[in-house]
């Protein structure tokens, strides 16, 4: 058996053993429906409220400002549609490199008559706050900009965008799915009104996420039914997952700082090693305003997925920036928006590090990756347009 090295932590993470342990009682003894009045229900509710406390404490917000959802995608949908529908009509500002959960929600709203401005980014993936300012119209009802991009890891200047939004009285939503629990988020300083944040990117379970909604922000529910989550998200709460999420956040609170430093060092080592061993490779994203564990690079004249497969066969899990599905090549829309030339963009590979990665993992990748790239390049016609 190969060594197994998981370098796809921006896609999902292994649930922390302490988190699994925290969840187990809620599948068993404490299985009740938290809306039930009896002890079985109240035991479940207790878990729910502990988690809400852990998370709101971590964010430094009120317990009633946190809504639990089924995932980052739902949080984004709820934030964007919830604010838009509360107004009924208007203009939304976002960027070209948002996650599909925001982009496609915006497109859906365009179909309903809302107007949307998709701001461009520069070569390093940054939104220009002045672009935000210029895009504001009298009918702008929402600004939604992600904190860090999942593909290239570039961290947006939300600290500059927030005040612009606040000054004009426009709610500011930040998709923090990739930053929550990884780098600090100062909701007040950044003037964030809504924050999407997720569990399975930070060693919590899948199937749960949160939306912070600053008190006073006008928002309507998007999923209709019972009166859960203060009527802002209907549906029986996913108690065990929420309990696990709370625990995961509690653990992040103590591990996040040191791990950010460690991952940055490991990632830099990986990049330096690749740069020294592989010709024609470039870094994508911002050199420093970047998620600690994220490395995105392009290998010229190599198709991403052949590297992903080659590494997979060596036990290394990375992700491809381009995906060739149903015969349609799709270079990453993020790289395209950043102006990465096509012959480079087709060969983008993302390695995202996490808590279980070690120096040895990096050494191993540096051992197997360079010959792989070389072999694949050797198979290729010299020039591909």
């Amino acid at each position, binding site marked *: 058996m190969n060594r197994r090295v998981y370098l796809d932590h921006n896609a999902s993470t292994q649930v922390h053993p302490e988190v699994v342990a925290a969840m187990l009682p809620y599948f068993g003894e404490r299985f009740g429906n938290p809306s039930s009045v009896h002890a079985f229900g109240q035991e479940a509710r207790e878990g729910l409220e502990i988690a809400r406390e852990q998370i709101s404490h971590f964010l430094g917000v009120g317990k009633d400002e946190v809504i639990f959802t089924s995932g980052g995608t739902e949080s984004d949908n709820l934030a964007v549609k919830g604010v838009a529908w509360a107004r009924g009509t208007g203009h939304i500002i976002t960027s070209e490199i948002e996650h599909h959960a925001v982009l496609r929600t915006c497109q859906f709203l365009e179909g309903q008559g809302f107007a949307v401005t998709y701001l461009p980014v520069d070569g390093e993936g940054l939104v220009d706050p002045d672009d935000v300012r210029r895009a504001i119209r009298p009918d702008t009802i929402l600004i939604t900009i992600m904190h860090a991009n999942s593909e290239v890891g570039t961290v947006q200047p939300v600290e500059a965008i927030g005040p612009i939004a606040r000054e004009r009285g426009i709610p500011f939503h930040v998709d923090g799915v990739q930053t929550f629990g990884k780098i600090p988020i100062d909701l007040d300083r950044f003037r964030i009104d809504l924050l999407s944040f997720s569990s399975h990117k930070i060693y919590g379970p899948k199937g749960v996420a949160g939306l912070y909604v600053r008190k006073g922000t006008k928002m309507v529910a998007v999923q209709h039914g019972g009166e859960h989550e203060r009527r802002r998200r209907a549906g029986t709460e996913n108690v065990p997952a929420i309990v696990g999420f709370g625990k995961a956040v509690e653990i992040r609170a103590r591990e996040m700082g040191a791990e950010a430093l460690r991952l940055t060092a490991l990632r830099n080592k990986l990049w330096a090693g690749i740069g020294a061993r592989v010709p024609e490779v470039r870094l994508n994203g911002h050199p420093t305003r970047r998620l600690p564990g994220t490395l995105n690079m392009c290998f010229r004249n190599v198709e991403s997925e052949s590297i992903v497969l080659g590494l997979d*066969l060596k036990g290394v899990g990375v992700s491809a920036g381009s995906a060739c599905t149903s*015969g*349609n090549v799709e270079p990453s829309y993020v790289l395209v928006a950043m102006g990465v030339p096509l012959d480079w963009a087709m060969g983008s590979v993302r390695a995202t590090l996490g808590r279980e990665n070690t120096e040895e993992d990096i050494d191993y990748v540096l051992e197997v990756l360079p010959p792989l790239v070389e072999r694949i390049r050797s*198979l290729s*016609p010299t020039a*591909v347009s």
Partner: protein
Amino acid sequence: MNYSQRLIDHFRNPRNAGMMRDPDGVGEGNFDGCGDLARFSLKVVDGRVSDVRFQTYGCGPTIAASSAGSELAIGRPVSELLALSEQQVTAAVDGLPDERLHAAQVVAGAIRAAARDYLARRNTQNRSEVRPHV
């Protein structure tokens, strides 16, 4: 991806990869809207393929299918290759996931094009230099 062992073997150890000096026929295959590209070069003796080389840019399955396609081609009459189907190539890697069927299309297309190129050259015998058609 759940690729077959045979596909993975072809990807890991591609057979007949590389360029060919003075090929008798050259053909390329690519797929609408897909960046994948395969170039096949043939040597033909007595109407049968005696040697094959491919160069491929593409995802793992396309590389593997190129290798498997090259093995399919060797020893066959060129006339048969004119009708080489993507199903034959798919079978030669023990199947492809739906969303990777293009790998076989690219490869079958390239091999058919190389066969056509060989026949076209034979019909215009007094050409001295040959360029692959792209």
